């Protein structure tokens, strides 16, 4: 009985796979050509984004104007997904004192820990400030040049990881531990949600927003986009660093 069922199962698997392959191939062959001017993607939505975003949102970078103004709700969801992903990794990998007692000591000492290295530390003394400044520049100029919260946050998170590897956990614990992680991430997400709720409320009721949009190419030109970029950058850099440290040690502290 079981053998017969297995044979039937295999045959059904092959048939299902063939049906799906045929469906995919038929769909792909029915798709329009890439770059065709009459494609359905070249509609009035993208045209409006490209022509109007520079004076409506004040952001010269059309992508920033799109993701933080026209589609800000989508970006809010993305930053929350990042936070939820970190929380899930916390739940799965966190090693507190109780679970640490159960492990044999050789498991704890098995991981290779890089000792303090003077060459790495000296060269990173020059590089890490430069990387931080570059990340802050990318975030703060996200609405004027290519960049924004996601890319700048990834750069700053990488700088945190470099710092951790060069100077050790005790050194970075002074300014970046689980408390600061929670406070920064929650404040950034709360600020994002509140600011965007205000804007949506004002827009839906046809009221006048108190947040000015200058649209003159200066750094404060785009109203809410700069603070939202900073909030997204804080969340992304925290997420990158927290994921790294969770997979490295199973917790913020040793």
């Amino acid at each position, binding site marked *: 009985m079981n053998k017969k069922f297995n044979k039937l199962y295999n045959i059904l698997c092959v048939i299902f796979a063939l049906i799906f392959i045929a469906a995919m191939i038929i769909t792909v062959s029915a798709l329009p050509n890439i770059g065709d001017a009459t494609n359905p993607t070249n509609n009035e939505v993208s045209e409006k984004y490209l022509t109007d975003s520079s004076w409506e949102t004040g952001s010269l970078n059309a992508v920033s104007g799109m993701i933080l103004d026209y589609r800000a709700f989508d970006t809010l969801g993305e930053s929350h997904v990042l936070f939820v992903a970190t929380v899930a990794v916390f739940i799965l990998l966190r090693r507190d004192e109780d679970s640490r007692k159960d492990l044999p000591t050789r498991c704890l000492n098995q991981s*290779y820990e*890089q000792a303090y*290295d003077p*060459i*790495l530390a000296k*060269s990173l003394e*020059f*590089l890490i400030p*430069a990387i931080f400044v570059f990340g802050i520049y990318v975030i703060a100029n996200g609405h004027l040049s290519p960049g924004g919260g996601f890319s700048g946050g990834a750069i700053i998170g990488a700088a945190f990881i470099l710092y951790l590897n060069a100077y050790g956990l005790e050194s970075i614990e002074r300014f970046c531990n689980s408390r600061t992680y929670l406070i920064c991430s929650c404040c950034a997400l709360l600020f994002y949600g509140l600011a965007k709720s205000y804007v949506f409320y004002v827009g839906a009721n046809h009221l006048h927003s108190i947040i000015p949009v200058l649209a003159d190419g200066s750094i404060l030109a785009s109203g809410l986009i700069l603070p939202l970029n900073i909030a997204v950058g804080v969340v992304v850099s925290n997420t990158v660093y927290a994921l790294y440290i969770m997979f490295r040690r199973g917790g913020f502290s040793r």
Partner: protein
Amino acid sequence: MIRNIIGCILIFIGVVFYIISVIGNLKFKYILNRMHSAGIGDSFALSFVIIGCIVINGLNVTSLKLIVACVCLYFTSPVCSHMLAKLEADTNPNLEEECEVEKECRS
């Protein structure tokens, strides 16, 4: 015209060093040897290619960015090689079979 020729010569030198580095990377089997040949490409060949690009481009903001990239790579790639070599020397228990180890470095 002269500038183009000088830049092309510099880029050509860089590409030759890259070819040497790739051949070494494919020929050698042990990690320290391969790292030695990869380091040539990382620091020397890349600098030559970037300097050639700067000479062709002339003096403007793009050249400044290229110089910053060159300096950063010249900083980071030797440190990266050093860290890799240290990791190999620290974790490989059979290091003496592969290469000579000085007496005071033996753990």
